[in-house]
């Protein structure tokens, strides 16, 4: 391993050499393909004079059906982000306060689903939410409903499944901040006369804000591009940007249109990440 040959601290060339392979992967397999994707999205539609054209973007952003798909992706992302934050934020405090075996157990409850395949989890929700599935059996058995409720292939199923898949991505970043929090901080606030609500708003919330921002960025960027969960839990009835991309490439063979949808999705995801890191920086300053 040349990683630590003596000159590393002194010689810029060794550092460049070391970062070569990773840099090459990033350039040849990430930056160039994305650049090409952008170029393809500007291709003129067949039958029109060649040259850069915004036709694909125009079609995506003016056709009501496709605009609906963009909105569906954003709506899903918003709903999932809000719900995971509402559950995940308080939950991470209990996990951080838990001791020894309890903490390991709860972290295990986060890591096992996180490591499990999205396909497996979405498949499980199709079993749970079927008309003759477990949720309906329980609801019927408890007398809460008289007839099986249609859940699979509804927005409810989609949101339940998506929250389930993305919840660990909210809890872990928040937990990472809360675990380092000094519990004496809120005690100090109380000693100084702050009532619990004010103590929370003025001390705990601002201190944990970096964790919230990280979790919100991660969950909203991941869920805006979710593909497997909507495919299995709601299907064709709920077109998303992701399904528009997949369809354009795998079914209708319209690369320029698919690429334009990809660029739009990319811009949304990057905007989320950039905005939230700026928010986090301002919060710290």
């Amino acid at each position: 391993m040349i990683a630590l040959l003596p000159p590393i601290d002194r010689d810029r060339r060794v550092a460049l050499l070391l970062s070569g392979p990773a840099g090459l992967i990033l350039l040849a397999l990430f930056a160039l393909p994305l650049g090409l994707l952008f170029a393809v999205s500007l291709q003129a539609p067949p039958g029109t004079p060649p040259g850069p054209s915004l036709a694909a973007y125009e079609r995506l952003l003016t056709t009501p059906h496709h605009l609906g798909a963009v909105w569906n992706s954003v709506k899903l992302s918003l709903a999932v982000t809000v719900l995971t934050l509402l559950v995940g934020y308080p939950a991470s405090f209990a996990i951080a306060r838990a001791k020894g075996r309890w903490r390991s157990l709860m972290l295990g409850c986060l890591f096992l689903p996180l490591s499990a395949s999205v396909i497996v989890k979405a498949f499980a929700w199709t079993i749970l939410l079927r008309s003759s599935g477990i949720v309906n059996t329980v609801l019927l058995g408890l007398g809460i409903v008289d007839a099986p409720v249609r859940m699979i292939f509804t927005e409810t199923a989609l949101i339940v499944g998506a929250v389930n898949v993305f919840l660990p991505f909210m809890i872990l970043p928040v937990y990472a901040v809360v675990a380092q929090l000094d519990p004496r901080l809120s005690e100090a606030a109380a000693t100084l006369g702050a009532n619990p609500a004010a103590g929370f708003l003025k001390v705990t919330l601002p201190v944990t804000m970096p964790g919230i921002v990280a979790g919100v960025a991660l969950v909203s960027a991941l869920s805006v591009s979710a593909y497997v969960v909507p495919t299995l839990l709601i299907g064709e009835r709920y077109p998303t940007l992701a399904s528009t991309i997949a369809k354009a490439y795998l079914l209708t063979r319209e690369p320029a249109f698919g690429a334009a949808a990809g660029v739009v999705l990319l811009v949304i995801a990057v905007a989320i990440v950039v905005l939230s890191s700026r928010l986090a920086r301002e919060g710290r300053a």
Partner: protein
Amino acid sequence: MRTAALAFSWAMAILACLFLLAPLLVIAAASLSPTPVFDLPVGGASWRWYGRIASLEGFWPALWLSVQIALLSTALSLVAGTMAAAAIVRGRLPGAEAFAAALVSPLMMPGLVLGIAMLQYFRGIGFTASWPALLLAHLVITLPYVARTMIAGMSRFDFTLIEAALTLGCTWPQSVLRVMIPALAPSFLVAGLFSFLASFDNYPVSIFLTDVRTKTLPIKMLQYIEEAPDPTLAALSTLILLGTLVLLVIADRAVGLSRMAGTGE
């Protein structure tokens, strides 16, 4: 009020844990279903679905392909990512911070966008072989996980230990092999684990790079689910879950879940 808040936070944590485990438990239960329609094994479990996994059409080639791609891309990313992390943490690398951010950036990239970008690119340069295309694409999927973990791991590593080893008469390669590699072993393990799982599970990138004969396991599984779901799939999913559980227990013993979570790895 404080007690109420604490009770609320515990309630949410327990709720979250149950909610997160629910689909996994359901899959395990459905894999023992006595009938072909996912009944819960109340009154009598059946193991026959496990016996049928091996006879799923195209299962063995898909599993073998996924394992190959995941192992190879993880190994290559570990080498490239560790070297880059060393340069970023220790070297006089111009723009080290930007390079570190760029290395991790594919993590935030929508998988499908990466997939179609790769497809266009490989087509454009006339590179149509599915297997190498999958491997190259999975390098981009796995490298950010390795880079993130190894940069964090190396920032915590005390490089004066290397100097100490040198003073005590070790050569450079010896001090790296005997001091640095063992000290970084937990980081290697976590990086390797996350990178392997990210590749092994990947659907949105692989779907654009497979052909009729080259299909990874996630693609085969989604195809089975859409065509004819039966408890055989639940049995297969349960086996994958058990495999993941074993990897996690090993990681917990070696590193500790708390540290894996606390450092954002």
